[in-house]
């Protein structure tokens, strides 16, 4: 008699957002195919487009999957189902993060294939690429958490502005302050030195803290809808 409502909510979100996921995966894949052409200009254009598609998706998904549910007043419909606000938030987090991870992992695999399989770029770029791909993931988690806890377009937009403005700064700091990574990224071999692991660890910890804080703040809410 008791269906798994959380699972139904997650599947519902995926059905509603599948167009966004497919379009972004296609855009990311198209950006990577530009890299195959080779030469400096296609590599720059392809890399920029690759990150743009990921950053775009990091903004679009929380807005469409979380903010729109509040803005377009479909939230009361969902909350009329046998689900608590805490379980709703958990389902929303799983569905949104899950959707982004599908895109993120797909693009990561394609990028690795480009480097390892097709040798479009030198292997030394892999650690740097992993670190750089972590930033949109952190940004996405921050926008998602803010959208869910803030329950407003204003808060989500503010988070987007902060996140998107900080990409350039973070990349600059990385390039100028961590020479052990930037000096080896043009080489034929991927160098996994302690600095790489430290940054990847910090990125992972930041994601865990953001998601944990989101669940904690959501569970403390006393008014929902």
């Amino acid at each position, binding site marked *: 008699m008791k269906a798994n409502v959380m699972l139904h909510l997650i599947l519902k979100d995926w059905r509603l957002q599948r167009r966004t996921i497919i379009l972004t995966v296609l855009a990311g894949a198209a950006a990577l195919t530009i890299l195959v052409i080779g030469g400096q200009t296609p590599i720059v254009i392809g890399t920029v487009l690759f990150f743009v598609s990921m950053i775009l998706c990091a903004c679009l998904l929380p807005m469409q999957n979380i903010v729109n549910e509040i803005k377009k007043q479909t939230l009361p419909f969902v*909350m009329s189902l046998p689900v608590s606000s805490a379980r709703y938030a958990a389902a929303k987090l799983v569905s949104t993060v899950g959707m982004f991870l599908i895109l993120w992992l797909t693009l990561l695999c394609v990028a690795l294939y480009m480097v390892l399989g097709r040798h479009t770029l030198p292997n030394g770029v892999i650690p740097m690429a992993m670190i750089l791909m972590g930033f949109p993931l952190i940004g996405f988690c921050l926008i998602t958490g803010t959208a869910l806890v803030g329950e407003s377009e204003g808060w989500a937009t503010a988070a987007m502005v902060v996140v998107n403005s900080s990409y350039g700064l973070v990349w600059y700091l990385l390039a100028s302050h961590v020479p052990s990574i930037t000096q080896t990224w043009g080489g034929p071999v991927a160098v996994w030195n302690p600095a790489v692991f430290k940054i990847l660890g910090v990125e992972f910890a930041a994601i865990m803290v953001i998601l944990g804080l989101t669940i904690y703040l959501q569970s403390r809410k006393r008014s929902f809808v």
Partner: protein
Amino acid sequence: MSDYAIELNGVCKSYRFFDLQNVALRLEHGTIMGLIGPNGAGKSTTIRILMGLVHQDRGDVNVLGYRMPEEQIIAKWDIGFASEDMRLYESMTLGWHINFVKSIYSRWDDAYAQLLLKHFGLRAEQKIKGLSHGQRVKASLLLVFARRPKLLVLDEPTTGLDPVARHEILRELTAVMVEEGRSVLFSSHNTQDVEQISDQITFIDRGRIIDSMDKEIYLDRWRRMRLEVPDGVALPSLPGVIGIQQTGRLAVAIANAFESHLPNAYENSGARVRAVENMTLEEIFVANVEHSREEVKA
């Protein structure tokens, strides 16, 4: 099982500019209660509290025997909730919504859903964005009714509807009640709708329940007496009379606990009773709210 479908005791909720104060409410199984109040009276807050969507600061809330908000998940299996501000996914069809809700509720009544589609003039393949406001409300109610819930909680479902759509919805709501044991809490500021279908009436104003009673008793107890008051006659203050408005020699006395001896008491004081009239629910509502606000001021 609890004696009541809904039971609220001493429920308080404070916001910056609004307080829900000491709300006590009881809805017996198998009855329809109309919750009437002006805009901002606290109807939606009360309903959100009993649905577990807003947590009360103090007080006990029991719905179908389950404590809210703690046991809201299990309670919601048997509650059908629809509110005026509830919207469906615009890019999807009504059929998609039906399949979604059906996949969750094993008690979903397909035959009844088809019947409702016909009664409401809806088509499953239609996208929600192509529906009028009235059709969207009907679609939301279809998704609620076909779950066959034990308790229906409807927050201003008829707001903004044309008379025909309102009539169709109220007719269906009455039909839904044919099933034994089903209870309905129906909030509205439209007294006509509430008068048409409710067994019990509860008035709420400025965060306080000001009265709650059987509808027939309400209509029976409230009377308006039109009086002619000769010069030099002072109208007595009588128990059961909550207000007198006098303009020159004519006065109107409103009684909220009318007794047959009241007109005689006015006659004995020297006034002439020209008419004793029944009041509509809307008139009772307005008089009740005004009386309650005067009491609070005093």
